[in-house]
């Protein structure tokens, strides 16, 4: 299965939720199920019980919504409620894709490509 590799950076205090590390390299599937309910078990080993039949699942290219899910379930080490809320980043957290505001790219719907750089900055800390 094809994967894409992303550079993901956390700053502004967010790094404390990700093992106190600013820079992460993250690999995710190039294509993911459209149905977010399947993400928890994706990518599933073909022989595992109850795994969705890969041929029957409708797929889409990996996007920011999938990356957020991936970061929360596989990278985050503490207090998920300080990172995500209602399926998106908590208000006050800025996200950039290749140094551009993700609000310009459709936020969760923004598509990701191999070697993209994603940055999350919390504005909620200190003054």
């Amino acid at each position, binding site marked *: 299965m094809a994967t894409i590799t992303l550079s993901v950076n956390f700053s*502004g205090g967010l790094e404390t939720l990700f093992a106190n590390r600013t820079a992460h390299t993250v690999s995710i599937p190039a294509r993911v199920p459209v149905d977010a309910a399947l993400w928890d078990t994706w990518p599933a080993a073909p022989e595992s019980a109850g795994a969705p039949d890969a041929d029957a699942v409708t797929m889409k290219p990996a996007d920011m919504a999938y990356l957020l899910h991936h970061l929360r379930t596989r990278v985050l080490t503490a207090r998920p409620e300080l990172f995500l809320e209602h399926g998106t980043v908590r208000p006050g957290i800025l996200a950039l894709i290749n140094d551009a505001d993700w609000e310009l790219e459709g936020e969760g719907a923004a598509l990701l490509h191999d070697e993209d750089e994603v940055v999350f900055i919390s504005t909620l800390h200190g*003054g």
Partner: protein
Amino acid sequence: MPPKTCALCSSARAILKRPKTGQQICKDCFFYVFETEVHNTITEAQLFKPGDRVAIGASGGKDSTVLAHVMKTLNDRYNYGLELLLLSIDEGITGYRDDSLETVKRNQEQYDMSLKILSYDELYGWTMDAIVAQIGKKNNCTFCGVFRRQALDRGAAILNVDHIVTGHNADDIAETVLMNIMRGDIARLGRCTSICTQGEDTIKRSKPFKYAYEKEIVMYAYFKKLDYFSTECIYSPDAYRGHARAFLKDLEAARPSAIIDIIHSGEAFEIKEVVKATQKIQQTCKRCGYMSSNELCKACTLLEGLERGMANAGVTDRARKKMDAEGPAPENLRIIPFFQQPAAPHRTDISIADTST
């Protein structure tokens, strides 16, 4: 999706969606509009005069770091003729303020400004670490807030400056408007949106980032690669402000103009004279000479409570009466050095106004 082009220059790739306007703009146009808006805020409010010595209240955090950068940029670009200095307060919080002060020291070199660090320890004889060790985490923000305000004024007096600028941004001010409404503090509601405050005899204080969104301040720091420190204070933060902040951020997510709209609402309130009349007349503290609405200023009351082991005396009226009932302050009580307001320095009466229009 093809890259979006800048709504202002129509050539470069857009990198930011402005929360205030929804415009999509490129990096250079962003720097230009952000700086120009701060310049307009400064000139419209006529904050400075040529020759003013201005202290930038610097914590090492994002707002004051960006403020130092922008003040230096504008002072050079528009010939404000200001002498800029950095003033930092060391509250004595190990693992928090000591680290952030390292950031300020780097800023001092980067911006070539002199830096004064004034500590709670030298001024009050107590660090926040020592205060929290005595009183616990509850109410410690009261001590810190009162002590910081006075420390900034005293630091400014030591530096003989005319003016202190702080990094309070639009989000902070909108939050304060909401908090004052929710607390029914109408007198504060009436003045919390003022860009510049000046007591009877204190140094002018102003907020050049009054209309600058936090999002843009953080984006500015990111794209300029400014060096700032971002860690939450290790002692319990102001819970009430935290709620107001979360509420405001939710509003902003739904409608980004909410922040500036709330500030405008705050500015438009007309406060009845009867409310203004209930404010106590300002006097000077009989013990330390700082401005006060009572015989003793808040900092002296808090300090006396700490010294006498009755720390709540400065927090609640009941505890204050209890301390008074135990007799007057002992003779050997540690007190804050007497506050000497600097003599008014030479001034010209010309304000810096925008001459380009």
